[in-house]
């Protein structure tokens, strides 16, 4: 009966209860949508960075990611590749080799990162081929052809068909030098990458840089972000079977892109502060409602105490009422929040020109929220927790009432 009584008490002042429920629901809706949007954005950022740069997993010589020394190589890439073929969730892999070099056009010289790639396999893993803005991407059988980042091409004053002189250090310490023909210009959207990256066919790279069949990275992609962890564990477990002078290690995208993770954490941290402010504002409005409900029923509480109700019973009843009110708001908020998020997921939001941090990671113009259990439940759970916490104050205030004084209250 007390639960029934609490439910009926919630609806004694329907307008006030509806407004409170709507405030809670709105807070939940906003939290679900905003969190989903943030997580959707993070996934796009991660996928963009992974596709252009690192892949989901890389097998490299130990510490190569910290200090890209030419001699720290994967000597038998084929053995690592065969190992990856047997790992569940890994959908494709390729080999890459990297070398810093001076790149000279007719009238300018810039430093750049030359990467040797396997054009056919690279298309399965990387989005570089689809970001070609001029000319064409590399093809199997190409030799001294190169595709160049758009900002590097701009700085060097070169375009498709021009020649480029490459000068660097080979694996064996000798001079690596060649003349490249610009076959294409790509624009990944990541300015830093486009300012320094140049790709040439891997066999040609191995010849110029005296790699003796070795590579620097065996890059793999998985069928989903969640599969990366298990796949990494499997690969790491099997790596000791591959013979190598320097130990090999398997790194995941988040270890290879710590800057991206920090950007995400900073953005999420800022978001959480905003959400907490929103929740506190809503919580104060709810506490006001609960306090009003207690004050205007003081006389009734006095009566209940007079007929034998203990303060704990009244506190329990008020907490039931708070739980009902909050639950109604949260259920409504989750329903509305999920509906809005699913709708925007299907339509997307056009951001126009991607700028700043977004542009750095090659985020597309259309953003979509990513609804998940986490984004649907976390915000409303925090709202419920904080709302119930604010409800404790008026609920415990009742404990201080004295029957005679309470019954004299108007």
């Amino acid at each position, binding site marked *: *009966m*007390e639960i029934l*009584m609490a439910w*009926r*008490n919630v609806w*004694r002042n329907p307008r006030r209860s509806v407004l409170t429920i709507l405030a809670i629901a709105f807070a939940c809706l906003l939290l679900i949508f905003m969190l989903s949007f943030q997580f959707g954005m993070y996934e796009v950022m991660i996928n963009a960075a992974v596709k252009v740069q690192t892949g989901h997993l890389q097998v490299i010589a130990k510490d190569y990611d910290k200090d890209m020394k030419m001699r720290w190589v994967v000597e038998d890439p084929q053995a690592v590749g065969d190992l990856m073929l047997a790992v569940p969730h890994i959908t494709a892999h390729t080999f890459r080799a990297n070398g810093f070099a001076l790149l000279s056009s007719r009238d300018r010289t810039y430093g750049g990162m030359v990467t040797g790639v396997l054009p056919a396999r690279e298309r399965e893993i990387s989005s570089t081929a689809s970001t070609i803005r001029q000319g064409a991407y590399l093809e199997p059988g190409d030799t001294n052809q190169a595709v160049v980042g758009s900002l590097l091409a701009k700085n060097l004053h070169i375009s498709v068909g021009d020649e480029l002189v490459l000068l660097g250090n080979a694996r064996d310490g000798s001079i690596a030098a060649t003349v490249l023909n610009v076959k294409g210009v790509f624009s990944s959207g990541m300015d830093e990458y486009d300012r320094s990256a140049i790709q040439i066919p891997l066999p040609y790279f191995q010849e110029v840089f005296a790699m003796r069949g070795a590579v620097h990275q065996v890059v793999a992609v998985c069928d989903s972000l969640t599969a990366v962890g298990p796949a990494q564990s499997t690969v790491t477990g099997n790596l000791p079977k591959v013979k190598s002078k320097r130990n090999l290690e398997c790194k995941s995208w988040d270890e290879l892109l710590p800057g991206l993770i920090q950007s995400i954490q900073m953005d999420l941290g800022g978001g959480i502060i905003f959400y907490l402010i929103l929740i506190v504002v809503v919580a104060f409005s709810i506490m006001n409602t609960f306090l009003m409900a207690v004050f205007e029923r003081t*006389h*009734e509480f006095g*009566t*209940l*105490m*007079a*007929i*034998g*109700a*203990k*303060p704990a*019973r009244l506190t329990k009843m008020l907490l039931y009422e708070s739980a009902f009110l909050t639950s109604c708001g949260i259920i409504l908020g989750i329903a509305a929040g999920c509906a809005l998020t699913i709708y925007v997921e299907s339509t997307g939001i056009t951001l126009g020109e991607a700028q700043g941090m977004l542009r750095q990671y090659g985020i597309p113009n259309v953003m979509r929220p990513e609804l998940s259990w986490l984004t649907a439940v976390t915000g409303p759970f925090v709202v419920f927790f904080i709302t119930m916490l604010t409800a404790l104050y008026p609920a415990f205030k009742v404990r201080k009432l*004295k*029957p*005679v004084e309470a*019954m004299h209250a108007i």
Partner: protein
Amino acid sequence: MSIVHIDNVTKTYRQGKVDVHALSGISLDISKGGFTVLAGPSGSGKTTLLNLMGGLDNPTSGSITLDGEVITGLSQSRLADMRLEKIGFVFQAYNLIPVLSAQENVEYVMLMQGVPAKERSERARAVLDDVGLEGKYSRRPAELSGGQQQRVAVARAIVSHPSIVLADEPTANLDSKTGQGLLEIMCEMNEKRNATFIFSTHDQMVMDYAKRLVHLKDGRIVDDETR
């Protein structure tokens, strides 16, 4: 046999900077099964005395014994238990719980006592029948007249067979005919259930029903008449 024993009770309120002596050295014994009226003008101390007997307030000095137990100085929790088990209240303004039906209002006391649901329902309906509210079990207070609400309050007060029923000016908000009807019901309950009724009033009609009439004035008993 005395169900209420009041020994030299005083009650002083602080009103601003002035002490108000609501009761001054009251001593009184009330017998079980009695129909006692505390009469007097406003400010005579009758409601204060009723509140002290009901354990709703503590006396400044003196002691009160209810059904053999000294209630003066008991903790709030123990007083709540005592009110639940031994006392029924009828208030001037009915004081029903607006969100509960007539039957639920009556059942609520038994719910707090831990009476099983089926028994609660049967006893609530029986006592509502006794006070003439057959078929009005599911009506909310707002759907009942003042007289009917006060009958529900009487039913709530007597349903758990308390040692005493304290009624604070129960007819003050009722017209004379309705008030008389209510008094007859309470007289009937007094006889049928041997419930002890103690009233505070300045209504002559209530005084006419009293088996014992205690007159108070300025916080003192000025007359004690048994009929």
